[in-house]
C-alpha cells in the first residue's frame, strides 16, 4: 500500500512539474482553423495547463514544419490534407495516417465529428444560365475564369489533380480566399474553391458543384499532434480527447458564421461552444439551474428579446393598417386574410431556408423577417374582427355625429377594437417567443442556440436549458400583455365586458 501511495505522490509531483510547460497550439490561416485551434487551446487551459495559440501560422506546409520542429505541439487539420499533402498517399483513414506519420514522431487523433471537404462553387445565376451542376460540366466551359486560393492551386489534392482528373482547360489565377467571394459576387471571376462548412455559401448565393468523379477525398477534421504530447500533458490530452465527435458540420457552419458574419472574435466563438458543451457535460455536477443561467444566458436573452419584439413592432406597424383595410373593403378582405393565413401554413424552417437566399444573408435578418410574417396573422385577423365586430348602432352613432371616416377610425373604431387588437398582438408575441428559437438554426442566436446544440449533441439537459427559459419568457410576455390590457384598454370597455 505504501509504495503505491508514494508512487501516486511522485506522479502528482511529476505532473505538477510538467504543468509548468506550455502546450503550443497552431492553426492555419482561415476562420475554421482559428476557431478549432482556439477550442483546443481553451480546452487545454481549462485543465490548468498553460496553453498558447499561435494563430494563423500560414498554409499547411508552414504549420506542418512548425509541428515537426516542435515549435507547436498540435494543430487542427483534415484527414484528406494530411494524406495527400503530407504523406503523398491516397489512404485517408486514421490508421493509415498514423502509420505514415508515426516515423516522424507525429500522429492524428480526436476526429471532431465533421468533414470539411474542398469544393468548387459558382454564382447560382451563372451556373443556372450555363446549366452547370457538376465539375465535369466545367470542362465544356473554357471561357470561365477561375479564381483559386494559392494553397488550393498548388496542392496535390487541389487544382493540379483536379484539372487532370476532369481535364479542365481553364487557366486559374491565384486569389486570396477572403477576397474571392467579393470577386465572384462582383463578376470578376466565375469559379472559386470553397470549403463545405463555409459560412458564406448562402450569403453569396453560391452553387456548390458536384464532385461527380469523387476526386476530393474525405476531409475529416482532426488534431495533428506530436506523439510526446500525451505523456507531457496527460490531463490536457485527456480533455482534448473528449472533444472527439463533439462538433458536427452544422455546429461548425454556425461557428464559422458567428465569426465571419456575426463579427464575433474567434476566442469568443470557441468559448461559447465550450461553455455550451461543458455545460452540457457538466449538468450532472453543476445542476440544471447553473446550466440554464450559464454565462451566455443574458446574451441569449437579449437576442431572443430582440428577435421577438423587433419583429412584433414591425408586424404591429404593418398588421393594423392591413386589418383596417380588410375591415373597410370587402374586396380587399379576402385576399388579405387568406394571404396572411397562407404564410402561417409555411413551416418555419422552410420559410427561413427560403428567406436566406432571398435576403442574401443568414442570421438575424431572415429570422426577423420570418417572425414578422408569422406575427401578421393574429394582428391582422384581430384588427379585422375587432373592427367588423363593432355594434352597428355604435357605428351609426359615430356617423350620425358627423365625424369624417378618419376621425371615426381614430376616435371611436380603433379604441372600440383595441381589446381585440391587443389580444392579437399578445398572441403574436407569445407565439414569437417559441418560433424565435428556431431562428438559431440559421445563426440568429437566442435560446434556440441551446436547443439546436442540445439536438445536435443529443443532450436533453442542454435542450431544456433553452426550452425552459423560452417557455418562461412566453409566460412573462403573456403577463406583460395582461398588464398592458389593464393600462391601455379604456375602463369603460374593460368593465363593460366583465
Amino acid at each position, binding site marked *: 500500500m505504501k509504495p503505491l501511495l508514494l508512487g501516486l505522490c511522485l506522479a502528482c509531483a511529476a505532473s505538477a512539474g510538467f504543468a509548468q510547460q506550455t502546450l503550443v497550439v497552431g492553426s492555419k490561416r482561415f476562420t475554421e482553423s482559428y476557431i478549432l485551434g482556439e477550442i483546443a487551446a481553451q480546452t487545454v487551459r481549462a485543465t490548468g495547463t498553460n496553453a498558447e495559440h499561435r494563430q494563423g501560422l500560414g498554409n499547411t506546409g508552414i504549420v506542418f514544419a512548425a509541428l515537426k520542429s516542435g515549435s507547436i505541439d498540435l494543430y487542427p487539420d483534415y484527414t484528406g490534407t494530411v494524406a495527400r499533402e503530407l504523406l503523398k498517399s491516397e489512404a485517408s483513414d486514421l490508421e493509415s495516417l498514423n502509420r505514415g506519420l508515426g516515423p516522424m514522431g507525429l500522429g492524428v487523433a480526436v476526429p471532431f465529428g465533421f468533414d470539411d471537404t474542398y469544393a468548387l462553387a459558382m454564382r447560382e445565376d451563372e451556373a443556372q444560365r450555363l446549366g452547370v451542376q457538376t465539375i465535369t460540366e466545367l470542362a465544356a466551359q473554357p471561357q470561365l475564369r477561375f479564381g483559386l486560393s494559392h494553397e488550393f492551386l498548388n496542392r496535390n489534392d487541389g487544382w493540379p489533380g483536379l484539372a487532370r482528373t476532369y481535364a479542365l482547360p481553364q487557366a486559374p489565377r491565384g486569389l486570396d480566399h477572403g477576397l474571392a467571394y467579393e470577386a465572384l459576387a462582383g463578376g470578376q471571376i466565375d469559379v472559386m474553391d470553397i470549403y463545405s462548412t463555409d459560412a458564406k455559401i448562402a450569403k453569396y448565393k453560391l452553387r456548390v458543384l458536384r464532385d461527380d468523379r469523387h476526386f476530393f477525398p474525405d476531409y475529416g477534421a482532426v488534431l495533428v499532434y506530436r506523439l510526446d504530447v500525451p505523456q507531457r500533458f496527460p490531463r490536457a490530452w485527456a480533455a482534448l480527447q473528449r472533444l472527439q465527435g463533439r462538433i458536427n458540420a452544422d455546429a461548425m457552419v454556425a461557428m464559422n458564421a458567428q465569426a465571419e458574419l456575426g463579427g464575433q472574435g474567434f476566442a469568443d466563438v470557441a468559448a461559447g461552444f465550450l461553455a455550451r458543451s461543458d455545460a452540457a457535460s457538466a449538468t450532472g455536477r453543476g445542476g440544471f439551474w447553473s446550466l440554464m443561467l450559464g454565462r451566455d444566458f443574458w446574451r441569449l436573452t437579449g437576442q431572443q428579446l430582440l428577435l421577438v419584439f423587433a419583429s412584433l413592432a414591425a408586424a404591429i406597424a404593418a398588421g393594423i393598417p392591413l386589418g383596417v383595410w380588410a375591415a373597410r373593403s370587402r374586396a380587399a378582405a379576402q385576399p388579405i386574410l387568406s394571404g396572411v393565413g397562407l404564410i402561417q401554413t409555411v413551416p418555419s424552417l422552410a420559410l427561413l431556408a427560403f428567406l436566406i437566399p432571398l435576403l442574401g444573408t443568414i442570421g438575424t435578418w431572415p429570422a426577423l423577417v420570418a417572425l414578422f410574417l408569422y406575427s401578421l396573422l393574429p394582428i391582422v385577423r384581430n384588427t379585422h374582427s375587432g373592427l367588423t365586430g363593432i355594434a352597428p348602432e355604435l357605428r351609426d352613432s359615430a356617423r350620425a355625429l358627423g365625424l369624417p371616416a378618419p376621425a371615426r377610425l381614430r376616435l*371611436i373604431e380603433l379604441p372600440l377594437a383595441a381589446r381585440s387588437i391587443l389580444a392579437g398582438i399578445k398572441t403574436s408575441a407569445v407565439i414569437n417567443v417559441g418560433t424565435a428559437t428556431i431562428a438559431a438554426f440559421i445563426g440568429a442566436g437566442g435560446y434556440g442556440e441551446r436547443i439546436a446544440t442540445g439536438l445536435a449533441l443529443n443532450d436533453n439537459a442542454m435542450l431544456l436549458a433553452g426550452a425552459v427559459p423560452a417557455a418562461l419568457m412566453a409566460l412573462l410576455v403573456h403577463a406583460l400583455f395582461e398588464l398592458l390590457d389593464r393600462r391601455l384598454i379604456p375602463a*369603460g370597455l374593460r368593465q363593460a365586458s366583465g
Partner: protein
Amino acid sequence: MIALENVSKAFAAKAVLAPTSLAPSQGRTTVLLGPSGCGKSTLLRLMVGLIAPDSGRALFDGTEISPANVDTVRHRIGYVIQEGGLFPHLDGIGNVTLLAGYLGRDQGWIEGRVSALCALVRIPRELLQRYPHELSGGERQRVALMRALMLEPEVLLMDEPLAALDAITRRELQGELKELFAALAKTVVLVTHDLHEAAWFGDEIVLMRAGRIVQRGSLEDLLQRPAEPFVTQFVRAQRADPRLVAK
C-alpha cells in the same frame, strides 16, 4: 328644414320603402308611428344621411344631402337611438364633448354648453364622469340627448328613444321630453311603435305600414277619420293599453 321627396329604399332587392314624400313641420314634433318593419326608422336614417335613397331626394335646408355635405348636415342634426348609442370607451363627458372637441370648439364655450345641457336634461354634472355601463338606462338617454344637443342643432331625430326603459323611467322621461321639446321649439322627428307615446308627443302623427305612409294627422284624425281599415285595426290593438285609456 328637412324634406324627403319621393324617396324609396330596398335592401337586398326587398323594398322597405315605397316612394314617399315627407316634410316635417318646422319647430314642431312629428311622430313616425307604425309596427316594426314599416319603414319608419328608414325614413329617419334617410333624413340624417345614414343611408342614401335608391330614388328621390333627401334635402336639408333646401340642399340635397350628398357625401360632400353630409358631415356638415349632421352637425346641424341631433340623433338619438334606442339605447342611446353612447360610446362605451368614453365617459359621459367624453361622449358629450367628442364632436365639439374634434371640431376645435373653444374650451370655455364647451364648458358653458355642458352646464346648460346638464340643467336642461336634469342630470348632475358629476354623473358625466361615469362610463355608460355605470349609468342607468334613463341616465344614458339623458346623456345621449346632451350629446345630440351639444352643437345646438336645428333638428332633433329620435329613434325609439324610450323603448328600452322601464315603465316608470319611461313615464318620467316622456314628461320631461315633452317640456323640453316645447322649450327648445326645434324641429323634432320621433320614431315610435307606441300609439300612446305618439299621441303624447306628436303635433302631427305619421302612421306607416309596410313601407308607405297610411295617414298623416292628429290622434283625433286617426281615431275619427281613419284613412283605411288598418288605422282602426292598429288603434284598437293598442287601445287595450291602460295608459291610453287614462289619457
